[in-house]
């Protein structure tokens, strides 16, 4: 070979990579967090994540608040499904205090939590549509989410940050109006969801854009601590509602949908099927709603009725003690988890017998599984990275806590 001849291997060519900031305030991130992408043209080579933009020190605040004042903090974790966070926290405190709730409270909680799950999945799935270019489904389906918010409003007066329920049950019973609204929701939501499915589920463009995009294997997903729909899309049938039932979930018959590839389309389908299952659970719970009281009968933790506070000495004392946070919490540590919109939402509560927790740690599913994002988008296109992110349903409030 001629000595002057040099062979140029493609890998020897000095490549120029571009650095691209995806976020912190980019509409495609659906929240405030930053990804610094290293790009080779349209291809994502690597990504570095920065989070913490809306960190509000909830764990520190919780150490300085009486137990009943922590529920509003949990609202702001995954604000797409605040009632699940509220009730999950209340269940944790009830476990610590040893309170057993009756079936009516359980069923009411199940109804509210499943409504919240539907609202959460609706946002996620319709936004996957938006990010692939289909705004129509999003606009239509948001009316149903709006209707769920009206049910919350009827129930507790708030819509987004609900602060629904109390330790030991609910602040008020289902009014006839609430029951009527839930029945109406079941009727209209079925129709709307079928319409939404017809728009996207077998849509050629949507399938081409989402199948085999951002996949993750079951082994990697477990190692990364995935839970919820994202783990189930990878083919692992782990659901807290079945593995460690709370709130009488064992009374209900529902399936856990699983995917095979763990890609964006599978995550979409799992959420879609879960909405149908949630609807089934709501129907069953509403039909079999047992008689009973909406609050447990425990004067140490449940506020007495207002008329009694004004007229009876004992009720006044209990009222005062509860409002001042003087409930006799035992020493101990308890971990309780519920199936949130995004996966296992855990509460690790350490009590030293004082009026506020000694330590309260939130296991936020988003925070744990979002660290897999660079691995999932590596080697893919930028536009695929965007829909992978929206299909993971990363909620900034839950990410940062």
């Amino acid at each position, binding site marked *: 070979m001629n000595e002057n001849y040099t062979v140029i291997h493609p890998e020897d060519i000095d490549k120029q990579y571009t650095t691209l900031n995806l976020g912190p305030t980019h509409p495609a991130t659906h929240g405030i967090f930053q990804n610094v992408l290293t790009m080779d043209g349209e291809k994502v080579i690597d990504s570095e994540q920065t*989070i*913490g933009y809306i*960190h509000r*020190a909830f*764990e*520190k*605040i919780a*150490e*300085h608040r009486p137990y009943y004042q922590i529920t509003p903090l949990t609202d702001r974790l995954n604000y797409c499904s605040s009632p699940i966070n509220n009730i999950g926290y209340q269940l944790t405190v009830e*476990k*610590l205090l040893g309170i057993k709730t009756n079936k009516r409270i359980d069923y009411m909680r199940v109804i509210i939590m499943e409504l919240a799950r539907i609202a959460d999945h609706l946002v996620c799935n319709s936004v996957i549509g938006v990010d692939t270019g289909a705004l129509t489904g999003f606009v239509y389906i948001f009316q149903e989410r709006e209707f769920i918010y009206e049910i919350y409003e009827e129930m507790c007066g708030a819509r987004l940050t609900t602060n629904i329920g109390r330790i030991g049950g609910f602040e008020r019973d289902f009014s006839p109006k609430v029951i009527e609204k839930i029945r109406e929701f079941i009727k209209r939501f079925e129709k709307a969801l079928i319409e939404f499915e017809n728009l996207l589920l077998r849509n050629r463009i949507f399938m081409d854009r989402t199948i085999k995009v951002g996949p993750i294997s079951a082994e*990697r997903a*477990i*190692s*990364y*601590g995935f839970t919820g729909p994202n783990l189930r899309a990878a083919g*692992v049938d*782990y659901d807290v509602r079945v*593995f*460690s039932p709370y709130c009488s979930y064992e009374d209900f018959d529902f399936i856990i949908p699983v995917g095979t590839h763990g890609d964006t389309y599978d995550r979409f389908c799992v959420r879609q099927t879960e909405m149908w299952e949630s609807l089934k659970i709501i129907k069953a719970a509403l039909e079999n709603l047992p008689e009973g009281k909406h609050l447990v009968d425990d004067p140490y933790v449940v506020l007495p009725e207002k008329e009694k506070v004004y007229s009876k000495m004992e009720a006044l004392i209990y009222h005062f003690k509860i409002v001042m946070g003087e409930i006799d919490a035992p020493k*101990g*540590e*308890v*971990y309780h*988890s519920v199936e949130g919109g995004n996966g*296992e939402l*855990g509460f*690790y509560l*350490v009590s030293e017998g004082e009026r506020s927790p000694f*330590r309260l*740690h939130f*296991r936020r599913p988003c*925070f*744990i*599984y*979002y*660290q*897999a994002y660079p691995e999932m988008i590596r080697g893919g296109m930028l536009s695929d990275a965007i829909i992978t992110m929206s299909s993971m349903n990363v909620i900034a409030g839950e990410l*940062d*806590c």
Partner: protein
Amino acid sequence: MTNEEVLKKFQERFATVETTAGEPYGMLTLEVDSAYIHDAIAWFRDTMNFNFLTDLCGIHYPDKGKALGVIYHMHNLQDNFRIRLKTFVPVENPHVPTVTDLFSSANWMERETYDFFGIIFDSHPNLKRILNVDYLDYYPMRKEYPLEDPTREDKVDSYFGR
């Protein structure tokens, strides 16, 4: 799988290691010395099939000799069994081995624990602050720090007409 069985197997394997066991609210809780915590977690993962690290967080007991703690929640998905492991280290020398080699999910959880409690996870690939700003010079979840900075001036009464 019951708490007794798991505890017995653990004590057989780690006979020389001093451990404290308890069952608060039904969950088997083991306190292991920080020198053995990595071995214990690896053993639980590989031998006992606890292949899911549910949670990792820190805790601070200012009155204890070994004040800083790391708490691991592990889950055996096959048998649906959960355990809790704890390890404590002194504030002056808060070194705990990392478990990122066993679980990818530990990466950010350990960074969060470092960020808030200043626990240093040895041989962690990227141990830096995650939720707080990089230039923060203290570990805010430690008990000696109050909820609000007492020197801040944007909340004084004069701003609110009081």
